[in-house]
Every structure is written in structure tokens, then in C-alpha cells.
């Protein structure tokens, strides 16, 4: 066969499309193979179709980045398999041989794209799902619908809010700050850091004011809200004259039913309260982690030691302090490191953490009158051992870029500026999470938390910096208190600097901030 009939052309196109979408049966593959073996025209059409798909793979990555950026999340492009050959070559360029992990792992790199994950499955019990069952720890993208047939599933949002749904239930995840309950029952637990988290449905919008509440949504559109602790703000929806319906506040032990006809008292409120107040014992999994931590509790001398569970600790040599100045000050937890403009100090990263940092956390205290002209990075580190990605933290000194004195994070591909004022002589807890992509092939993103709260920030893409611009001294080392190798450093106090090789969840960040401890399996199960 050389010349194909019109029917064969249609069939060939359908076979190729099935193959591309991963749904071709063995019979279809065999039929395609047969056509390719016999017809030159079929082979040409096939090759061009595959090349077109390869081009679409590339274009889709480019076009995604043209979308507008939401306020509170930036995407971190995975160092994808697609660009691996270039990465390999770049490694050679830097005179470093290609290590096994270099090509096998997702390597974070900031880009300005849509958010990927907004929540993850943090606990479950006897779950039966409609469709593919998510596994513990799976990340969910915005717009994801969860359809639980039976059992209990706990979803932790990036904002820190936790929702447990009881099957049968349908929950749409809209963002890190909002979910829609289509039907079924949920119990929401919202820590102070996630105040403002909203749950909506056809009948009512509930804005959490830091609390625990339950909500049931019926198929017909009616919903009932029960406040177990704290208070919530409720706004009836979809009713005649909805605009005139005032928002009201429901407090502890109060409940209300919302329907098209209006809001009413809940029948059998006491019985339902009792039921919702019962603890749901979901099973949570504690994922292992490796860490390096500098507590800066030495209080004297010129060396800051590190605690680690993975390899030899990395000491920070502080240099000789003169009689007038000390390296040490009172910290948020015990002692802290005081930096007063002296050159930055460095610590070599090694072991598991040195291979890939996924979470960074520390306390910082900046002077209220910190000189605007003196703002510079106070923490720089590579995110992976090989020098293809790195990040620098500073406070923002450019009002045109965002809030003056807010956290500023710079990476190869641009700069993000947060909204929380750090320049106030108070201790602030900072955490940066470099997330895994939610799905294979997807891109991951960075989340910033200031004082435990998911930080809103604006993105300043700027000019992408090339690998050559990475400070040479950053290869495998962390720099604290100023530019790597610079002669004048920043003025600030730093406490409890922690690097972890997996991403910390919002409850883990909160626990760390509140107790100065990494969460244990026991604590995780008990919460």
C-alpha cells in the first residue's frame, strides 16, 4: 500500500491520536504498525504528527507562563526531563561530573506561572473514592474536585486550614484559601494563621474567623453551619434580594440552616452538635526528613555549630569578634546570631540536605530603622548541590517593587516581594517551601510563609539570570548575613536556621514556629 484512501487517512489520524493520549488498545497499535509498515504516506503523516506533538509539548510549557499571576503563589518550574540534556551539558561547563540525582530529580527553579498545588491529602480513614484514589501526601491543584464515596479524608490547604470530609461528599478545591462543598459533610479546623479561609456552597458563604466548624450541604442546595469553637461570618447566597442580606456572625455552639427560602434554625441542633464534636481519628503518615539546623545558642566564641540527623554538622566560622561587638544576642529561642555589617559567613552543605533543599525556615529580627540603602541579601544558598539553582533572601528596599521592608526572594528567574513588614525590630518566622510538582510532568512552585501565614506576594520577573551569574562561592555552601564573598554585610539577628530535604506542611511550619521542634509522628497523630 502506498497511496492511502480517505477512510484510511481518517483512521490513521484517529489511531495516532489514541496513541498520543495513551488510550490505544493492542489491536489499534497493531493496526497502526501495519499501516506504517506498508505505506510511505502513512509513515510521513505519522512522523509529522509526532513532531507536531513534540512541538506542542514545548509550546504548552511556554504558553502557560504567559498567564496572569495570582497574588499568593509563584510557580517553580521543575528542572524538567525536557531540559535535562542542557542541564547535563551545563554541568560539564562548570567542570562537575553529572551525578546520578542530577538528572533524576525535580529541581526547583522559579517561574511566573499558574499555581500548581493548593492543598494535599494529609489523612484518611477507610476511604472509597469515585474515580482514581489519591494517596496520602498527594498534592491537589486548584479546581480539583474530590468525590468521596465513604470514609473520612483530611485535606490540608496551603493556607494551613484543614478540612475533613465525611463520605459521601463532594468538595471542590478552589485555592489555598477557599473550598466549595457541593454535597456532604465537612469539619473545618482553621488556625489563626489561616483566618479568612472560606467555605462556600449554593446557599451560604462561610468566612472563618479562626475556629472549628462543621457544614453539611444537601443535594437540593440547602446547607447547615455549626460552630464548634470560635466564630464564623456567614453570608446567605442565591436568594431574592441577596445583596440586602446582611452578613452575620455565628459564635460557638450556634448553628443555622440556609436555603433558598431564607435562613432558619437547625432541627435537632443538639444531636448534630454532639455528632460533629466527636473527634474523627484519621490516619496520618509521618514522612521521614533530613535536616541541618543552627540554633545559635553558643553565646560565646566564634563558631556556630549545627545539629543534623544526616551527616556531619556544618559549623559556621564567625571570624574574630572585637572587644566592642559580640556575635551573640538574645534570640527568639535561647541565643541568636547578631550580624552587624561584618562580611557574610558561610557553611558548607553536605549529606542529604546538601543534595536538595526543599524547605528553609528561620527567625529574623531587622532593626526598625534599618538603612534602606543598606538592604542586601541576608541568606543565600543553592537549592541543589549542583549550581543550577539558587535563591537569595533579603528585605525589600525598592518601594516600586512592593512593600518596603517586606521579604524579598530572588532567584535565577526573577524576584518576589511579600507583604508583611519585617523591618520593625520584632522577631519574624520565615519559611520557604520549594514544592514537588503535583503530578508527573507538572511544574512545582514556591510557597512563602511569614509568621506561619501563607504570604501574599507580587512577582517581579525581571531578567532571567544565567548560570554564570551565580556566585561561584555558592556551590555547595550557604551564606549568612550578606552577599557571598562581599566585604560588608547586613544588620540583623538570625535564630534557629533550619534546612530540610523535603517540603514541610503548613501544620509542621506552625508547630515549628510555636514549639521550635520538628513535628514528631506522635504529635502528628494526636493533632
Amino acid at each position: 500500500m502506498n497511496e492511502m484512501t480517505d477512510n484510511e487517512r481518517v483512521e490513521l489520524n484517529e489511531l495516532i491520536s489514541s496513541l498520543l493520549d495513551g488510550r490505544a488498545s493492542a489491536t489499534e497499535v497493531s493496526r497502526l504498525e501495519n499501516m506504517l509498515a506498508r505505506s510511505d504516506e502513512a509513515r510521513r503523516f505519522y512522523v509529522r504528527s509526532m513532531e507536531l506533538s513534540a512541538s506542542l509539548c514545548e509550546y504548552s510549557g511556554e504558553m502557560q507562563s504567559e498567564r496572569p499571576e495570582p497574588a499568593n503563589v509563584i510557580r517553580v518550574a521543575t528542572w524538567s526531563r525536557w531540559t535535562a540534556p542542557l542541564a547535563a551539558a551545563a554541568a560539564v561547563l562548570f567542570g562537575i561530573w553529572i551525578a546520578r540525582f542530577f538528572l533524576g530529580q525535580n529541581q526547583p527553579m522559579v517561574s511566573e506561572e499558574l499555581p500548581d498545588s493548593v492543598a494535599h491529602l494529609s489523612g484518611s480513614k477507610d476511604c472509597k473514592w469515585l474515580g482514581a484514589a489519591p494517596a496520602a501526601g498527594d498534592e491537589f491543584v486548584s479546581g480539583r474536585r474530590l468525590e468521596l464515596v465513604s470514609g473520612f479524608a483530611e485535606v490540608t490547604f496551603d493556607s494551613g486550614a484543614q478540612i475533613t470530609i465525611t463520605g459521601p461528599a463532594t468538595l471542590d478545591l478552589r485555592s489555598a484559601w477557599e473550598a466549595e462543598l457541593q454535597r456532604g459533610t465537612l469539619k473545618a479546623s482553621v488556625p489563626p494563621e489561616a483566618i479568612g479561609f472560606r467555605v462556600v456552597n449554593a446557599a451560604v458563604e462561610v468566612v472563618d474567623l479562626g475556629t472549628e466548624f462543621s457544614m453539611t450541604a444537601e443535594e437540593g442546595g440547602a446547607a447547615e453551619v455549626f460552630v464548634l469553637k470560635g466564630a464564623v461570618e456567614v453570608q446567605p447566597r442565591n436568594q431574592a434580594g441577596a445583596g440586602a442580606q446582611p452578613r452575620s456572625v455565628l459564635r460557638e455552639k450556634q448553628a443555622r440552616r440556609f436555603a433558598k427560602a431564607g435562613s432558619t434554625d437547625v432541627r435537632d441542633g443538639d444531636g448534630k452538635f454532639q455528632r460533629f464534636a466527636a473527634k474523627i481519628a484519621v490516619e496520618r503518615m509521618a514522612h521521614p526528613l533530613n535536616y541541618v539546623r543552627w540554633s545559635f545558642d553558643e553565646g560565646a566564641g566564634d563558631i556556630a555549630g549545627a545539629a543534623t540527623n544526616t551527616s556531619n554538622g556544618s559549623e559556621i566560622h564567625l571570624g574574630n569578634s572585637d572587644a566592642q561587638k559580640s556575635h551573640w544576642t538574645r534570640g527568639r529561642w535561647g541565643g541568636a546570631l547578631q550580624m552587624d555589617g561584618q562580611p557574610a559567613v558561610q557553611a558548607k552543605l553536605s549529606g542529604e540536605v546538601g543534595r536538595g533543599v526543599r524547605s528553609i525556615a528561620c527567625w529574623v529580627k531587622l532593626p526598625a530603622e534599618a538603612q534602606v540603602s543598606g538592604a542586601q541579601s541576608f541568606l543565600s544558598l543553592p537549592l541543589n548541590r549542583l549550581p543550577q539553582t539558587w535563591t537569595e533572601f533579603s528585605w525589600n528596599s525598592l518601594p516600586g517593587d512592593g512593600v518596603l521592608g517586606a521579604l524579598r526572594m530572588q532567584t535565577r528567574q526573577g524576584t518576589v516581594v511579600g507583604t508583611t513588614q519585617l523591618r520593625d525590630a520584632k522577631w519574624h518566622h520565615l519559611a520557604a517551601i520549594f514544592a514537588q510538582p503535583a503530578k508527573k510532568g507538572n511544574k512545582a512552585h514556591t510557597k512563602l510563609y511569614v509568621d506561619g501565614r501563607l504570604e501574599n506576594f507580587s512577582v517581579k520577573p525581571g531578567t532571567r539570570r544565567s548560570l554564570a551569574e551565580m556566585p561561584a562561592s555558592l556551590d555547595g555552601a550557604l551564606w549568612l548575613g550578606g552577599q557571598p564573598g562581599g566585604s560588608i554585610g547586613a544588620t540583623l539577628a538570625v535564630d534557629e536556621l533550619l534546612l530540610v530535604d523535603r517540603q514541610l506542611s503548613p501544620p509542621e511550619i506552625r508547630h515549628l514556629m510555636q514549639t521550635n521542634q520538628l513535628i514528631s509522628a506522635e504529635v502528628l497523630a494526636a493533632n
Partner: protein
Amino acid sequence: MSEQSADRTKELVLLMTQHQRRIFSYIYTLVPDRHSAEDILQETSLVICEKFSDFRTGTDFAAWACQIAWWQVRAARTKFARSKVIFDEKVLEAVAATASELAPEQSARHEALSRCLQKLNPRDRELLMTRYESGVEEAAQRTGRSLVAAYKALTRLRKLLHDCVTNALISEATA
């Protein structure tokens, strides 16, 4: 690193940057599963780095790299039987020969595709882009289609783009 060696490395980086799409495309044509093709691309890139001293400057890098890719595909076939490489040897060879024959037009087709994409209506473009970025399920959900409707639309759109690209090249050739 000596100056000569540094120059050679720069040359490798440049060539890889210029030709990686063509190499990936070649592998993808032989192994029509994106993740498997990307795995083989990684392996190929390692071999390219190792053997780069054999490459003579001024000759066709893409053709040389595709030859390495070809052997990696063959090796994958032995290693994974038909789980990754679905075509039998004879078909694989015939398809590889056609791919090499059509290589000269590939860049022009890639460029023309970008113009053809602009002609699609936004909903169709969204479906295609999401499909290639995040998969069919998410593409269907985001564009308000059922899964079956999304598959049908993708089949239609691929053919539409294929024809648009072919026509664009014919117009350019006759202009």
C-alpha cells in the same frame, strides 16, 4: 579546565540547546510515550556528553546525536521489550528512515505551528495547551468538556493543525 576544553564544552552546550527539540522529537517518534521518550533523551544526552570528543566540529550535530538516540532506543527495546518501544524492528527502522528524511523541514513546521495555534479559538487552544501541560483529564475539566468529548476534540485539533502547518509550508514555498 583548560581553555581548549572550556571552549569545547561551550560548543556542546550551544549545540545541545539548538538541537534538543529535534533529538527529542526523533526519539518521541520512535517511542510514542512522552515520559519514556524523555527517559531515553536523558540517557542519550549522557552518551552525547561522554562521546562528544568523537564529534567533529562542522559536521551535522543533530544527525550525529540522532544516531546515538537510535542506539539508545534499540537498547531500550532490548531492556524493556515492548513496554516502552511498541513497534517491531522493521517498522522502527522504516519510521526512523522517514524521520531522518523529513528532518530538514522540521524547524519550519515548528515555526508554522506557532502561527497556526494563534488561529485556533481560545477554548480549543486552552484544551490543547492544558492537555500537553497537565494531561487530558485536567484539560477536559478546565474547558468544561467530558473526557470523551475532549479526546474527540484533540483528534480533530491535531488534524486541523497538521493541515494548517502543511498548507503554510506550501504557501511559503510558492510565495
